[in-house]
């Protein structure tokens, strides 16, 4: 025992030291807990929205015209090409304005996307919305109706059945969703291929009379587009000889521009983006899958590794029922089999 220190004093000193350590530990714990609470408060609203939008279960509703049509193509069995980690996503874009009930919208845009992580390749194939196909649950019609009759599950099952592909995930986005997404990431840079002029463009966004028209003029050349003008560019089809096919090409351009811009988004942007999108986007991907893919998407840098395709004649010819396009199935299936196992 050191000289000059009595046993009682030592115990008090020890208690005091313990009290300081305990107070410091308590303070650190409190700071940590509060920081977590602050983070939770920051991310919780977006997490809730993301939770609602992701992990959608694919369900199919029965078709309203269940009589099977005998022209259904025989689905080819997918060619087993082993591409580790590769997956196929079906992108669906809908007019979800007030002209339609929320459950029965058409898909104005349908794009099959194959992502091959090992080679950092992306293959995009736009399916014409007017293609006349057998629906999964029976009956036939333009492929844009598959979602209307069976929601995402109906669209996925119809594409899988008719094109002989396996779809791993789907992403659905509404008109407003695309506008809000592009605005939330601060706009996109696009080289618009030509002046897109439309004297009868539907005035159905932010307008109480969805059957009115407005004039649209998106001029040609490189430019920074906000959500509204990007939407006008990808949606207008009246002044394009290729109509839906022409706008499919434009949709792919904007899609790639969004991917380019999304590379600059940080995790702290997620709440504002999620808040902007609220309810306008749905996907079968789970949150963890989305979290995996966001940084992964940033690694796809080579524009030459991105293959964009639209279906042109002779893959189809006009004159189908109700102005639809009649598919040339052998040609379509040969193309699809080449890129989408």
């Amino acid at each position, binding site marked *: 025992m050191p000289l000059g220190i009595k046993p009682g004093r030592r115990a008090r000193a020890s208690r005091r030291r313990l009290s300081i350590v305990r107070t410091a530990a308590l303070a650190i714990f409190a700071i940590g807990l*509060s920081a977590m609470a602050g983070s939770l408060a920051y991310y919780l609203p977006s997490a809730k929205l993301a939770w609602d939008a992701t992990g959608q279960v694919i369900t199919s509703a029965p078709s309203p015209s269940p009589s099977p049509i005998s022209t259904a193509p025989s689905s080819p069995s997918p060619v087993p090409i082993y591409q580790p980690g590769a997956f196929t996503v079906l992108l669906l874009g809908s007019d979800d304005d007030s002209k339609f009930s929320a459950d029965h919208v058409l898909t104005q845009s349908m794009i099959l996307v194959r992502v091959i992580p090992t080679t950092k390749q992306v293959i995009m194939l736009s399916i014409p919305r007017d293609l006349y196909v057998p629906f999964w649950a029976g009956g036939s019609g333009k492929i844009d109706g598959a979602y209307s009759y069976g929601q995402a599950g109906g669209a996925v099952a119809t594409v899988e059945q008719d094109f002989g592909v396996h779809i791993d995930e789907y992403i659905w986005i509404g008109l407003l969703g695309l506008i809000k997404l592009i605005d939330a990431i601060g706009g996109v840079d696009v080289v618009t291929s030509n002046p897109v002029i439309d004297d009868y463009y539907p005035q159905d966004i932010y307008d109480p009379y969805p059957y009115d028209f407005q004039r649209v003029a998106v001029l040609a050349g490189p430019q920074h587009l906000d959500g509204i003008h990007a939407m006008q560019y990808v949606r207008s089809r009246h002044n394009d000889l290729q109509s839906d096919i022409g706008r499919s090409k434009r949709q792919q351009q904007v899609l790639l521009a969004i991917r380019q811009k999304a590379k600059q988004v940080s995790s702290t942007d997620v709440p504002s983006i999620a808040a902007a999108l609220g309810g306008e986007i749905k996907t079968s991907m789970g949150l963890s899958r989305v979290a995996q893919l966001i940084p992964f998407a940033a690694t796809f840098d080579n524009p030459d590794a991105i293959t964009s395709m639209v279906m042109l004649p002779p893959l189809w010819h006009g004159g189908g029922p109700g102005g639809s396009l009649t598919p040339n199935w052998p040609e379509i299936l040969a193309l699809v089999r080449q890129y989408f196992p």
Partner: protein
Amino acid sequence: MISRFLLGIGLVALMLVASFGTYTYLGGRHSKVAVVAQKPTAATPRPSAFTLSGTLYLSQNGAIYSLSFGRFHQLTIEDGWTQPSLYPDGRYLLAVHRTYNYSDVYILTRFGQKIQLVVNNAGSANNSDTGSKHWSFYPRLAPDGATMFMSYDEPKFGYDVPFSIWAMPVNGTISQGRIWTNSIDYTGGDMQPVPLPNGGIIYTKYSYGPDGNLVGQIWHTTRATPTGREGEPLTDATDDCSQPSLSPAGNAIAMICTYERQDTRLEIAYWSGSSMGPRRPLIINQLVAQPTWAPDGSGIAYLAPGVPGGPFQLWFLPKNAYNPPPPSPTPVLTPTPGGPYHGTVPSPTQAPSVVATLVKPIQVTMGDDFDATSPLAWAP
């Protein structure tokens, strides 16, 4: 020893600071992708900032700005003003005033005051048919100062709304206008005319290329040919070139070419007045728009994003980048006066190797969002 009460108060305060601090910190850690562009006038030029010669006119968010001596001045309010171009004598500006469903052309002073409405496309207020209205874009005056060329959506056929190049007296009315080009249906038509000193125009014609894609081509025509053959293309369809700009001397054309990609190249070519020489790429790794020659020949200004995917900023490519000064003359050995020398000749020192200086484009602005569909006007 601290009392339990004070300890509790301290901890609560600490927790409040920590939670609010974390929330605020995360909120402040946003990336800059969605930052709203500033007005060009908001930026304070640094003393060492690069200054362009003359006065440049640009458009942002529906307002026209001038840039002179390194400072921006807002000339119009933010109300659809775009595509300024100068009178040949530089006294006035032509500009487009774009509204929701149509666009008009005005003459403005160089300070932005309206002088005269040249083209009124509002149509009748009683006609609710959206197809009854018109767009006028890219107004440019011919060197005579009296004839205005522009892209105008007449004639149009229901859903097919192609622009044609029109010429009209700048002090007249559209009824005195004359259609110059025969645009291709369902393409968007003919855009961005550039009047030439010899009376013709070069412009961009949109068409369906060999692969079925819509592409731009630079065309040249010397006369009004609303029907039939109207001159000749100066570029190939697959090169997808557009936005021509004539050099002040009239002997070179700058343009952008995309080769049908989401990418552009700034290219220049010799121009004889009727034919174009081989094109030379100057910039290949930027999304270049609206190249414009400096009136004093010191370089080419253009718009391009400051960061990939970002809004368009003003850039300048100095002349030395595409027209380097001639190398210094090779020294010629001159005989030493005083007759032949019989001593030891010193070995010559190695001449320094000539290294070509890479002249890079200069980013003039940051944080702006210039309208990349609006050509720049540049006064001496």
